[in-house]
């Protein structure tokens, strides 16, 4: 295996100190420190490589930083971040709110599941990007089309995960609930739903990731605001560093959203078996 020469001494010495330890056992400070170190190394590599190319082809970290400062000063970055975030959060939240009951219903009503199944099997393979044009024709170039695309992404993933959760509810618990006097509706609310919580959360996290995929394509095609639009218009000004700023902002934003989701769910839903 070939390893980047610059990182070898560092890595080898660490590996030797604890060859059999798994990642989860490292002290917190070490783990965070390693992450930071790795990012710094990445930036260093980026910097070295960028010296060989023009700023248009590959802007240096410094130039990107300056671009970021520019975009922050004139408010563009903040506007783009809020525009994209609003769309993502609206579409995603709607998708979760609708997807969970749809998944529950599909899980509990076999004929409904059978009727919806062909559609699900079909649309599973049609990515939201394929609907960008239609969304604009039907809903206009405004917010509605973007929110709708994110909703589409989310509702499928969440409904299918919820459905999987319902179908995997332990038969034993259903029997226990019925023998304890729970009717079907109360069983759904007090046994099935709580049992599916981990599946729902997994679905919501996956959907969040896919929402980011979707938003960028939607904004690139038709939007005056948002990170996708920022990335696309940067080309018109030959400002490749803005593309980098947009990409980094997307990555950080996604990381932040996922982190918040993980924190909140593992704090509030721990008793349902959610823990990250």
């Amino acid at each position, binding site marked *: 295996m070939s390893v980047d020469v610059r990182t070898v001494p560092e890595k080898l010495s660490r590996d030797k100190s604890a060859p059999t330890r798994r990642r989860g056992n490292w002290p917190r400070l070490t783990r965070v420190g390693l992450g930071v170190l790795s990012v710094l190394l990445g930036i260093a590599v980026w910097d070295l490589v960028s010296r060989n190319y023009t700023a248009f082809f590959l802007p240096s970290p410094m130039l990107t930083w300056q671009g970021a400062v520019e975009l922050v000063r004139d408010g563009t970055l903040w506007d783009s971040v809020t525009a994209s975030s609003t769309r993502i959060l609206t579409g995603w939240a709607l998708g979760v709110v609708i997807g969970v009951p749809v998944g529950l219903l599909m899980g509990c009503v076999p004929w409904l599941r059978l009727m919806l199944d062909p559609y699900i099997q079909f649309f599973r393979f049609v990515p939201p990007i394929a609907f960008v044009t239609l969304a604009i024709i039907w809903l206009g170039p405004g917010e509605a089309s973007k929110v709708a695309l994110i909703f589409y992404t989310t509702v499928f993933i969440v409904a299918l995960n919820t459905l999987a959760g319902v179908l995997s509810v332990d038969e034993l*618990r259903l*029997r*226990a609930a019925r023998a304890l*006097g729970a009717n079907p509706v109360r069983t759904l609310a007090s*046994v099935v739903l709580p049992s599916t919580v981990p599946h729902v959360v997994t679905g919501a996290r996956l959907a969040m990731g896919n929402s980011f995929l979707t938003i960028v394509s939607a904004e690139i095609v038709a939007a005056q605001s948002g990170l996708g639009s920022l990335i696309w218009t940067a080309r018109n000004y030959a400002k490749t560093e803005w593309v980098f700023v947009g990409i980094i902002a997307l990555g950080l934003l996604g990381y932040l959203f996922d982190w918040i989701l993980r924190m909140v769910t593992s704090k509030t839903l721990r008793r349902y078996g959610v823990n990250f």
Partner: protein
Amino acid sequence: MTGSGSPVSVRDVDIRFGDFVAVRQANLDIGAGEFVCLLGPSGCGKSTLLNAIAGFVTPVDGEVTCGDTRVTGPDVSRGVVFQSAEALFPWLTVRQNVAFGPRMRGVGKAQRATAVDRYLAMVGLSHSADRFPAQLSGGMRQRAQLARVLANEPSVVLMDEPFGALDAQTRLVMQVELDRIWRETGATIVFVTHDIGEAILLADRIVTMTAGPSAGIKNIYPCDLPRPRDLTDPASAALFRQLREDIGAEVARTLRAQGLDDGHDGRATGDPAGRPAGAGTVEPSSPGVNGTRVADGDRRALR
């Protein structure tokens, strides 16, 4: 508060899973407040019969009645304690689990709290009321399951190998506790086990089943030894031997049906103290070997 137990009767019951006949022509009458143990080789249909009484499976023929009513589905009057503690709701605390039944029945908050406290105390779990099932030991989880069932004040309690997953010491404690709780509540108990010693310690009557498919009731042994019972006393030991031979014959039959050679597996591991008794180790096919092994078992039984 718990009313006395209801009688249960199983009449000409046939149970099928598709084409597979699990139980055929089972007949059993259980008196109000009686403690009956169902004993039989693994896979013979004990759980299936219990599930029919619970209302989880519907017989294709015959009927099960509880008190005056025909069983058509699960009901709060017939509580079920499962072998696996997975039956507890892991997102609820012990207290909330026990309160589940009363909550579903619409019992008022204050009354519910009283009932929950009462049954938690009865099974000795008051101190762990606010812990989650995952934080309990196996024995405590089964106590929680029992308290959850008792909180509905059922007239019949159905238990499917409830102590099967517990270690020997814990099981012994649980058996003594169950005996006390049964007398306190007066409920009818139908208790499935494959442990002969457990059946002798607990039951008023012990029902053995024939090996499946098409399992049925084989014999019914009255067990009116004075309580608390001691497996080492001669009467218990004699009953133990009798049951071991009864079930052993069925196990041997099953093994032969499965094409296994049962001639060499003659170790009599039956232990009257109730550890997983190699109940099915007496093979009529090899009487000589068998005789000595059984005698060996007897010595231990009479120790």
